[in-house]
């Protein structure tokens, strides 16, 4: 089924109006040598019913998890039913980027409200309409820092998500920036002594994450003065946005750019995407921030309205001088985040508290098992590190029970060969946790 409405009569009439006799005449600019003689070799066409059955079968080849103990950048949170219903309105999801403001007031106002909520949550005055994901948001933050400070060195804490560090590395390599990793201390936080030694007058930015990859809350009181001591920018990331409901945001601690992953706000885990990159900054970046911005203005009659604004930053106007090449962002995911935040409202705090309680209970149950220990004692949010005799075997036991287990830390942190990163969200019941602990206890 190809969804084209043309009848043979339509085609004949249209060809006649154009003044050609055959459809192939319209493709004459494709050199003869390169025209395909037959059709590409694709799998057989399916009717809608067959296609439905086929994708259903494919999805059933996955294992639907009994529970998820993994965080590490993607989080299992409850999504209120209202979110799907609102973003499922096709006036939103079948629209393009709002280039024609008068017939796009819906998405433009929604983006403006999103920007406002993100600004309030991050503690910074300017937030954009979204980036691709938390990793690329941090990478674009690093590039923005390089370009604004005219410096070519980026420092990044080893407590930043390993994949975020790799994406930042990819973007740095493309810009010939040096990227240096800063170790963590015994508390599992950025080693500020090492940071002090590393930061210099070539340093464009210091990138940290809080709660960090170990789930630990970084102490910005120690980091901020060091980062700013030589004029570098402080870029603070996060991976579970619900933490913003509980913790004092990095913007309030003096970060210049706050960026992170917004998936937790109303977007399913979706095997890694689409998510949304949250990006907020201080006022001085208003005219340099990457991505779309919706701005309030007035119409001819003086009524309030919204437009995409400060487009002189963007690629379609500035081309090679643009601050970023981003065009399509994650508007529908940002809309989901907006609906989620409106739905939760001040309950975001209660949800975040519940996450802490669940994580603490999970940690307590597992840490009580023989041979299990918590290597870091610093306060955290909903994730934590434990060491255990054999992380691989524990995960395998959980896997046998249909459970997505913890993140094995040894591949990114060889110094933590027995480390497992675990996450407790509101989706885990006490019974789930007791069961997971019992399975772990049975591993010999």
């Amino acid at each position, binding site marked *: 089924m190809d969804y084209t409405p043309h009848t043979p009569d339509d085609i004949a009439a249209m060809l006649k109006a154009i003044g050609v006799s055959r459809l192939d005449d319209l493709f004459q600019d494709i050199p003869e040598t390169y025209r395909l003689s037959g059709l590409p070799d694709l799998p057989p066409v399916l009717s809608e019913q067959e296609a439905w059955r086929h994708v259903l079968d494919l999805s059933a080849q996955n294992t639907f998890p009994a529970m998820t103990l993994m965080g590490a950048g993607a989080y299992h949170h409850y999504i209120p039913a209202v979110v799907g219903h609102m973003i499922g309105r096709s006036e939103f999801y079948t629209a393009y980027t709002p280039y024609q403001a008068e017939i796009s007031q819906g998405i433009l106002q929604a983006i403006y409200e999103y920007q406002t909520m993100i600004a309030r949550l991050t503690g910074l005055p300017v937030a954009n309409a979204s980036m691709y994901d938390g990793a690329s948001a941090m990478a674009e933050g690093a590039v923005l820092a390089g370009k604004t400070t005219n410096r070519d060195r980026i420092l990044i804490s080893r407590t930043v998500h390993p994949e975020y560090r790799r994406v930042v590395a990819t973007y740095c390599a*493309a810009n010939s920036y040096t990227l240096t990793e800063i170790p963590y201390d015994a508390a599992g936080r950025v080693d500020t002594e090492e940071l002090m030694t590393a930061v210099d007058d070539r340093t464009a930015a210091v990138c940290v994450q809080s709660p960090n990859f170990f789930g630990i809350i970084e102490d910005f009181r120690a980091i901020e003065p060091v980062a700013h001591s030589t004029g570098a920018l402080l870029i603070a990331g996060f991976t579970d946005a619900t933490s913003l409901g509980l913790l004092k945001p990095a913007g309030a601690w003096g970060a210049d750019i706050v960026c992170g992953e917004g998936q937790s706000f109303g977007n399913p885990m979706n095997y890694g995407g689409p998510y949304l990159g949250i990006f907020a900054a201080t006022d001085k970046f208003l005219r340099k921030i990457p991505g779309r911005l919706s701005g309030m203005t007035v119409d001819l009659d003086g009524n309030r309205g919204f437009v995409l604004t400060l487009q002189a930053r963007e690629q379609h106007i500035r081309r090679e001088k643009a601050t970023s090449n981003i065009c399509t962002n994650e508007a529908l995911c940002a809309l989901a985040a907006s609906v989620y935040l409106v739905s939760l409202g001040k309950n975001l705090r209660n949800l975040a508290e519940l996450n802490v309680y669940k994580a603490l209970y999970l940690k307590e149950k597992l840490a009580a098992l023989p041979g299990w220990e918590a290597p870091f004692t610093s306060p955290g949010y909903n994730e934590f590190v434990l060491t255990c005799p054999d992380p691989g075997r524990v995960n395998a036991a959980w896997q046998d029970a249909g459970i997505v287990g913890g993140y094995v830390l040894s591949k990114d942190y060889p110094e933590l060969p027995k480390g497992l990163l675990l996450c407790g969200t509101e989706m885990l019941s006490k019974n789930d946790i007791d069961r997971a602990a019992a399975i772990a206890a049975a591993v010999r």
Partner: protein
Amino acid sequence: MDLIFEKSRPGRRASEIPAGDVSPVALSEVIGEAFLREDIDLPEVSELDLVRHYTALSRRNFGVDLGFYPLGSCTMKYNPKITEESAKLPGFTGLHPYAPEAFSQGNLALMDELRRMLCELFGMADFTLQPSAGAQGELTGIMICRKYFETKGEKRSRILIPDAAHGTNPASGALCGFETVTIPSSTEGGVDLTALESAMTEEVAGLMLTNPNTLGLFEKNIADVARIVHERGGLLYCDGANANAFLGHTRPGDIGFDLIQLNLHKTFSTPHGGGGPGSGPVGVGAKLVPFLPVPRIVKIENRYTLAENFPDTIGRVKAFYGNFNVMVKAYTYLRLLGAAGLKRTSDMAVLNANYIKARLAPYFDLPYDRTCMHECVFSGNRQVKSHGVHTLDIAKRLVDYGFHPPTIYFPLIVPEAIMIEPTETESKETLDAFCDVMIAIANEVEENPERVKGAPYTTPVRRLDDVLAARKPNVCWTGK
């Protein structure tokens, strides 16, 4: 319309958090008072307030389901509903990206099959599905070019981009540290071969060519273009944003393109969501495969696995594996259409564009009067000269008749450009209705130009003040 913040009333709630079955703890002790935030300044509304708010917003928005959306270069075709349903299957949405591979075999099979289909359709050796959107695909492609020359020990600092290219092309080049050099278009609307010959030195990494280009024209001299670029050791990059024009007719890999980025949200009908999510797979020829981002899907004895160990890779451009949910939609679409359906897609897309071109040619200037591919580009010059009515005015007037305007003022090489891409899913009746309105507006320009200049009249807001928005930016509600 009020902002959601203006509808907020202290104490209202649209949600309830479960009471919890584990003991609460004193957070000031466990976390420390200094680390806790004082207040959350989010709206307080009921669920009905929320639903009415977003429903009202949706009614102030225009999508393909409401009407004709001929936004050039954006391929705003109809999005079959079954693809939405398939992407919502809990078996797809509920999986953590780091779930054990034994749990994600269905996902990996789908991604691998999508990759294979794209290879076959475009004649490339391999594809990565990781980039989040077309522009990130471009960036990935250019990073691959950069790494290719680094590995060969060649220093190439420049990249060539025709003046008809998308703005993302030069921005992607610059973001990757290349100096971008603009290649002018010929009078026929293709690449100026003489200019290409002289610019294509051994310091040039390659040419980023949108094909068909933003004039809607297929590069007729593509064989010469490819020869010139390749003779000097350069790479030929295809911006495949306009791939809807040639599916089943030709394959970029056969033509000599070394890389191509696609936009699944255009060509393969995954809806654009009002500005994303998209998905921008990148296809490469055999010699560039080692540089693709990791992880890559590998099949070992009927089991799919994600492999990281490719020493020449550019690394990662995104956490995890790409916009998986968008891939599910594109995959479903490809299975529904099959090879014959895809070829018919391009046939009808090109037929529709040429039909509009033929019908409107008497009324609007046509700077490049050739058979076009998926889109046609007019100029509003005649209307500017005769009555001072600009393309922007014509676009706004179209809105009053229930149509989304075409892309305007792009490509930059056409003054007062009107870029119309009807796509294949629109019927002759719709095209005729659109053309009738365009002709009526052309007549109105003659008879009552002021009426056109004041449009639109039927929208929730009248024409908006962009200058004010930029001069006194208000991008965050402060309650004033």
